[in-house]
């Protein structure tokens, strides 16, 4: 196997409370496109960051061209010939294309001054090799996203990278730009570069990759030759467990409609969205990252302004609320990013739980710490939160326990509707099933629940009804036996310009 360019063996990486990678081994050959697949939280991004020098693995070896290497920083990774192309591009918009390509490694002359001529010539050579239609002097901020991505790829060319890792490269590209990207990847491939390709889009994976390695819960499930496998096989490897027995779905006891939105539109993010949810019902919202799901619920909750549409709350049309009004109406939004939006990390559990309801826990502006303490104790017991006490800053807790505090924070005001955006992202399996049970219990207690998830088994396992969202539109609605993996994949992978599919079930 002389053509193996990069191999990793036994990589393990543990974060507080989560085992992100467990004994991961795989290899990349020269001139191959190797897909890395798995659900969110399966460990793909951790593995990438280990390869790019952003994380230090706890154990394991990385071998590059038959030589063991230790990658301690992104700079070292680049020197060794590994280049990561991030989903969010990491360029300096005020600098020129040439300056960006060689960022951190600008050629200098004997006096330590920037050798502009060489910089420009080298950059031009790299751009030409990739067939770029722009020059080295353009300011990067004026380029389209697709061209900016080419600048990043030009770095691979310029530094003679052996391995290039693409993380969801087509997430923000148009169809034409995607074609160009694939042509560029083919060029790199024929030059003998090993490519690691990460994407959620199954059609792309089957179109351009040679082999597929599937990760689940931080472990390699297997490597397959793309030509010898199919969608169902890969999906089974990604999900890998018996859904029906694993998830706990709430008993069906639907009552009055709590929320209905009609024709909800936000100029650039989504348009014409209709949805409704009843008390006692769990509505799943499935779609790829970037489909507009989070933005949709943020608009309902008043964090974004709607451009058009109607909102009917418990049978009455109301104007779109501010977040404060949404809380007072009885809506709760558990956001996708716990740390950025959900918790005040420096505060203890007690203070985080009561934060949206300070009026409830104070009289004449003075806080009632005794009652706060009672609520804290109640939810710590109900949700089984592991913490040393009400004042322990939540930044010290594991992801699962943090998420439970976010839930406690919204549940303690007894809302009528709770929206959970990726409620189990990045938390360990044990806490995941605790949260799934809680979702079922909430619905059985008569709450209306909306669950957004990119994890197919989760959304299939907990929902009574599922809406799929594709590029800002509702692309399908499924209930009962109509809720299958294949149906959801078909609904989200169809291009948006095709006719919108209605009620398959």
């Amino acid at each position: 196997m002389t053509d193996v360019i990069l191999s990793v063996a036994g990589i393990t990486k543990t974060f507080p409370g989560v085992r992100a990678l467990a004994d991961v081994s795989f290899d990349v050959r020269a001139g191959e496109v190797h897909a890395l697949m798995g659900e969110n939280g399966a460990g793909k991004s951790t593995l990438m960051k280990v390869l790019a020098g952003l994380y230090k693995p706890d154990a394991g070896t990385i071998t590059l061209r038959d030589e063991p290497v230790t990658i301690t920083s992104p700079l070292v990774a680049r020197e060794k010939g590994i280049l990561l192309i991030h989903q969010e591009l990491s360029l300096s918009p005020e600098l020129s294309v040439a300056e960006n390509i060689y960022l951190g490694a600008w050629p200098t002359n004997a006096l330590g001054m920037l050798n502009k001529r060489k910089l420009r010539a080298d950059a031009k050579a790299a751009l030409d090799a990739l067939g770029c239609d722009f020059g080295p002097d353009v300011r990067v901020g004026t380029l389209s996203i697709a061209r900016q991505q080419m600048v990043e790829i030009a770095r691979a060319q310029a530094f003679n990278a052996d391995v290039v890792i693409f993380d969801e490269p087509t997430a923000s590209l148009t169809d034409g730009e995607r074609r160009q990207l694939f042509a560029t990847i083919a060029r790199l491939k024929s030059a003998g570069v090993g490519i690691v390709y990460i994407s959620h889009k199954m059609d792309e994976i089957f179109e351009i990759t040679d082999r597929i390695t599937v990760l689940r819960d931080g472990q390699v499930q297997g490597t397959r030759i793309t030509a010898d496998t199919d969608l169902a096989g890969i999906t089974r490897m990604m999900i890998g467990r018996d859904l029906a027995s694993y998830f706990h779905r709430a008993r069906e006891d639907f009552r009055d409609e709590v929320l209905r939105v009609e024709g909800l539109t936000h100029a650039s993010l989504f348009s014409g969205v209709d949805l409704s949810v009843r008390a006692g019902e769990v509505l799943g919202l499935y779609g790829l990252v970037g489909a507009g799901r989070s933005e949709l619920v943020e608009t309902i909750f008043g964090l974004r302004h709607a451009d058009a549409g109607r909102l009917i709350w418990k049978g009455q049309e109301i104007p779109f609320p501010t977040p404060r009004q949404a809380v007072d109406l009885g809506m709760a939004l558990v956001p996708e990013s716990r740390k950025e939006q959900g918790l005040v990390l420096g505060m203890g559990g007690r203070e985080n739980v009561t934060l949206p309801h300070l009026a409830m826990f104070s009289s004449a502006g003075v806080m009632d710490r005794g009652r706060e303490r009672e609520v804290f104790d109640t939810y710590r017991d109900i949700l089984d939160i592991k913490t040393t006490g009400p004042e322990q800053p939540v930044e010290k807790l594991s992801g699962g326990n943090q998420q439970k505090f976010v839930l406690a924070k919204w549940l303690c005001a007894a809302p009528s509707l709770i929206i959970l955006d990726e409620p189990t992202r990045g938390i360990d399996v044990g806490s995941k099933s605790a949260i799934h049970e809680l979702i079922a219990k909430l619905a059985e207690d008569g709450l209306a629940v909306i669950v957004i998830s990119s994890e197919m088994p989760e959304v299939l396992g907990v929902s009574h009804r599922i809406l799929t969202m594709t590029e800002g539109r509702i692309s399908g609605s499924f209930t009962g036996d109509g809720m299958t993996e294949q149906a959801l994949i078909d609904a989200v992978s169809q291009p948006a310009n095709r006719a919108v599919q209605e009620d398959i079930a």
Partner: protein
Amino acid sequence: MTALTSRMRGTTADWLLRNHIWLFLALAVAVFSMASPYFLTVNNLGNVLTQAAFIGILAVGMTMVMINGEIDLSVGATLALASALAIGLQPAIGVWPAVFVGFLSGVALGALNGTLVALSGMHSFIVTLGGLIGIRGLVFVYTGEEALMVEDFAYTDIPEVYLGPLSLTAMIFLALAALFQWVLTSTRHGRETYAVGDNIAAAHDAGIRIKRHKIINFTICGALAAIAGILLSMRLGTAEPNAGRIWELWTIIAVVLGGTRLAGGYGSMWMTVGGILTLAVLRNGLRLLNTPNYVELMVMGSVLILALGLDRVLAARKGAA
């Protein structure tokens, strides 16, 4: 039993980690007590406290704004304006109405700062830097570039109330610090102050009205600057157009020295009181030792960096534990 002692030890260590400034203060007091026989006297310490009170009152307001994640550079100029109005308006409208107008000027400027920050989205550093220059200009226009003298010197007797060695000014400072410490720990407004400073997105999602909240804290800061200005005018009997110049910097130094974070979300009034007293003791002690002015500045600059360095080291150790 063992568990209990270890927990208690943990708490003491925690307290020291959070309030390292009081260790610094104790050290400074010990050193100056040995170096100068005049330092550790009731009279001298009473004076230290009175001298510290003016910047101290500014620092109380600054702490609120800084825990919020903002900064107010205009407090020195606001102090000068309130002081000038409190003295300059006396012949026209009488002593207490003039004092009241001086106070209102601080409230109004604070509210203006807060409104501009909240509504424009500009950083408070820029907004209040504008305030610093603009308000100072206003003071020069109003005073005609001359110091205003009080006509009736009974005005300067107002703060001459003592409780033992404690002057009325010092008492007002300590009372305000205690009041706002209570606001921070026990009221809804205080809770919101930390939440907004630590994670503004989470606070917004929780339904806290960020803009209104910030305007309130800038208004508090402006009002306290005006109170400091009025007390200063009473103490001096004059209003200098240059009064309070670079005091905003000493105020920020004291607050940061205490341990309140510039980034927001963390801090307390006790830390700020510790920072203020440390600065005042250093200044007083060095003067008793006849240290030249510029050496005094060098020492104080070094202490600031040392204290913050210690804070970083302790925070890193705590994070590792």
